[in-house]
């Protein structure tokens, strides 16, 4: 860098250093004995990011910011709460802050904090003309976007760090204590980042019904109820993201497969679950290639993930199935019948607004026959509104999923040979129609 370092340069460098640190963790083993150093480095970066978030939001300058309930301050508060939680967890689990092992990313984040600190006196009075920019909630939220992105990267590296630390000789029990496994952390971090959840949706997470935690079955029922509620809401949203529909379908596949594996459930339930799982897999494959302009909803994602883990645990026989378990399973399958109906309505509405896009290579010959624009999309392999034929097949798959029967025909075709030159056994590639 020539001249004095700018805030933008420093934070960009810090992000690059952090990305490099976390990537090296994923690609290379740590030297034996370096496990605790790496955990210390994680703590150092976390402390630096926490300090930086405080520096940006200026807790000392605005002790009342937590009481402002404006859209612009909401992500800021969410990030601060998230960082506080992480820091407290780390401290409680025994990774104490400082003195930290040297790590470039932490040093650079601290340098960026120091840079900001030069603009204010210790009592929070401005010392420079730039201080006024740093003091606006809107500007702070913008600055925190990058901090939030860095926190996401740091937290995403934790599972890898756990593995590498154990490989480098830290006892597994100690790893478990120092870096407890935290599900849905990516989701939590995203939510903390405040993006890319569309405006107007973030308040909904607060109003959601709570999840009972009295045992796995109670939680299962609660999560399914919330998913069902979301499926209903989604059908009336102006711009739902297809990712959320995929989340529903993936969850449905896992839940139905797990239900089919449940011993003692009786033949009708098992058969229905198995057929519905096949139908939902068809839905999922059909949705897989679709794109929308809006992202998925992180709350649904969190519930879907939790439900998938619960279903996998139940399916793996951790809980011994009894009559209560079977009754709950039956209720869960009924909920997914409703979800299939609402999801189909969502898809149809999205398609009617030309909001559902499909890559050209997945359109069949009959899909494009009467549509010159779609034919052009197929030739150039670009995104185009979903062909009516594709939508019909998708709706058929949803109907099959709701009825608990196997679908009559697949929604998707395999890509044409132009794009894939290798095919698995017994598959011939459909030609360009």
């Amino acid at each position, binding site marked *: 860098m020539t001249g004095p370092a700018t805030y933008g340069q420093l934070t960009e460098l810090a992000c690059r250093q952090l990305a490099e640190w976390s*990537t090296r963790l994923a690609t290379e083993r740590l030297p034996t004995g370096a496990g605790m150093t790496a955990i210390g480095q994680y703590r150092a970066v976390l402390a630096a990011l926490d300090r930086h978030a405080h520096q940006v939001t200026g807790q000392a300058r605005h002790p009342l910011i937590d009481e402002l309930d404006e859209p612009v301050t909401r992500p800021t508060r969410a990030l601060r709460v998230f960082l506080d939680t992480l820091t407290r967890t780390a401290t409680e689990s025994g990774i104490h802050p400082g003195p930290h092992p040297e790590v470039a990313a932490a040093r650079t984040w601290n340098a960026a904090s120091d840079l900001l600190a030069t603009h204010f006196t210790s009592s929070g009075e401005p010392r420079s003309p730039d201080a006024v920019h740093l003091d606006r909630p809107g500007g702070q939220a913008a600055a925190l976007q990058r901090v939030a992105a860095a926190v996401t990267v740091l937290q995403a590296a934790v599972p890898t760090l756990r593995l590498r630390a154990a490989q480098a000789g830290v006892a597994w029990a100690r790893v478990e204590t120092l870096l407890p496994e935290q599900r849905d952390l990516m989701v939590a971090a995203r939510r903390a980042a405040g993006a890319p959840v569309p405006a107007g949706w973030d308040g909904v997470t607060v109003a959601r019904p709570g999840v009972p935690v009295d045992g796995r079955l109670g939680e299962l029922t609660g999560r399914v109820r919330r998913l069902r509620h979301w499926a209903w809401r989604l059908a009336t949203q102006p711009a739902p993201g297809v990712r959320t529909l995929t989340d529903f379908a993936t969850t449905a596949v896992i839940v139905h497969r797990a239900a089919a594996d449940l011993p003692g459930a009786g033949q009708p339930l098992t058969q229905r679950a198995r057929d519905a799982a096949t139908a939902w897999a068809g839905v999922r494959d059909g949705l897989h290639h679709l794109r929308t302009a809006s992202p998925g909803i992180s709350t649904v994602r969190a519930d879907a993930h939790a439900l998938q883990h619960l279903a996998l645990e139940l399916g793996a026989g951790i809980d011994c199935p009894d009559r209560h378990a079977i009754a709950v399973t039956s209720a869960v399958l009924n909920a997914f019948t409703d979800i299939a109906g609402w999801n189909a309505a969502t898809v149809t509405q999205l398609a009617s607004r030309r909001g559902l896009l499909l890559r050209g290579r997945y359109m069949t010959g009959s899909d494009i026959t009467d549509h010159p624009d779609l034919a052009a999309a197929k030739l150039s392999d670009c995104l185009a509104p979903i062909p009516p034929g594709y939508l019909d097949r998708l709706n058929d798959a949803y109907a099959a999923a709701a009825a608990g029967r196997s679908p009559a025909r697949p929604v998707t075709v395999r890509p044409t040979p132009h794009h894939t030159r290798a095919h698995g*056994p017994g*598959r011939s590639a459909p030609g360009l129609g």
Partner: protein
Amino acid sequence: MATPVPTAVEVLVENVARDLPGLWSLLYAAELLTLRLADGPGRLDAGAVTAGMALRDAVEELEWTHPDVGTGAAALDLEPDLAARDRGRDAVERLLRAALGIAAGLVIDPGLPVDDVLMLARVVALIGHARQQLARPRP
């Protein structure tokens, strides 16, 4: 004439460009292969299911930052031999190791925009998560 999955994977790994579309091709093939492995008959394979979800997220991370990254890129949808699932898992592992190699090379490229670097770091974490899940013992 059908190409065996390991051969197809090897061809992809050796010919793929070391850029974002190349990374997309590897992750896309790995995701679908994992999905097919998880969908096979028998007890639900929790490791493959979770790995498939992580890889779906990784593909989405790429597509969210670069919506056109998949246009024209090689998109392999391989049908694994479900009688030899371990070979299918080995093929996924081969794809993921190649993907990690590309991502690690791109992350240290000072010419790459910082948003892409952060996205790649998240992708790398997701690949790592998927590999750990696939290494779990099967039911």
